[in-house]
């Protein structure tokens, strides 16, 4: 955990609140490093794709490769935590 990752965590929390606000499954639980997109926020694969685009346009403001985070051996990973994304952004975008 480092300051860049924590900064991204805050930005991701705000983005995710906005992103999921119209969903029936929207929750009032605070978003933490451990919050999982599929299990806790009712994400589906299309939402992940859409979220990555939003992260690139609104958070890092450039193209960041997400392949290694999203895919393992040509298939989607089972789930992804907000902390994993923050760490990935910190490592990729600084």
């Amino acid at each position, binding site marked *: 955990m480092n300051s860049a990752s924590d900064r991204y965590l805050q930005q991701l929390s705000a983005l995710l609140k906005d992103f999921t606000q119209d969903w029936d499954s929207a929750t009032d639980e605070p978003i933490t490093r451990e919050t999982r997109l599929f299990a806790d926020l009712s994400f589906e694969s299309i939402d992940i794709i859409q979220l990555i685009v939003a992260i690139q346009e609104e958070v890092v403001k450039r193209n960041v490769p997400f392949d290694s985070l*999203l895919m393992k051996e040509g298939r989607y990973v089972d789930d992804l935590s907000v902390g994993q994304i923050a760490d990935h952004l910190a490592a990729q975008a600084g």
Partner: protein
Amino acid sequence: MGYAVVNGARLAWQQMGEGPDLILLHGVAASRAFWFPAAMALKARFRITLFDLRGHGYSERTASGYASQDIGRDLLGLMDALGIASADIVGHSYGGGAALEAAVLAPSRVGRLALLDTRVQQLQPQMRLQDLGELSPFEIAVLDRAGGPAPLEGETQIGFRFLEAAARQKVAGQEFSGSDDFVPFGEGGGASKTANAWIRLLDETRAREEFCLPGATEVQIGALRVPTLLMYGERSRCWPSARALSRLMPHARLVEIPRAGHFFPLSEPKLTLGYLGAFLESPLELPA
């Protein structure tokens, strides 16, 4: 990434990679996420365009416009909006039907055409329970919960009915598990949003009837001069379409994916990409 209004529908699209244009179309009850893993693998060689069919993913649910010919026109309209004169087109399932229609409507805009486990309504207008052969564990579970096979006797669009039943069961909180195969609406802890969207599409729009409308005629399909790849899973229920397409398009290459069912681009990604990559990089020679 962006939105384009095409034929009255706001469509969500995104592009990645650099190279010749390649457009990938998903099937019904899916989204552009279906093709995202393949797009990741192919983006070093192509500029790839993915989009959500109308009524799916982040694209608008319109009252109508869901016939394969309509979706084919959406594809051509999106190409106009994005300034793509021509592209190689790959479609899975219903997306392949739309790709075929686009090729018939505007053959000069389609470089290569790949149809993956596509059922063509014109060539295979009915699919009954007794046509399915061995049922998957998923289908057996759906059937059991729906009260057994009796209510579905006489049903001529059994594939759509299975999807609908699965979506309604998913929304009712019933989970499917125990299968290694891809299960519709079965991903992660969610997928009830996709299941809900599918039910609303069937209940609130003309999609249910329009999905079953025939498109191009056999003569039109037979007159197509576009390099074509047909890929079907060994356990696919769409073989009547594959055989008819092969007969009408003798130049097309027909590939069978061993032991695979309808969703082989997800269950057999390496094999699928191997065949697709070789086809897309083969010399572009127009069939005689």
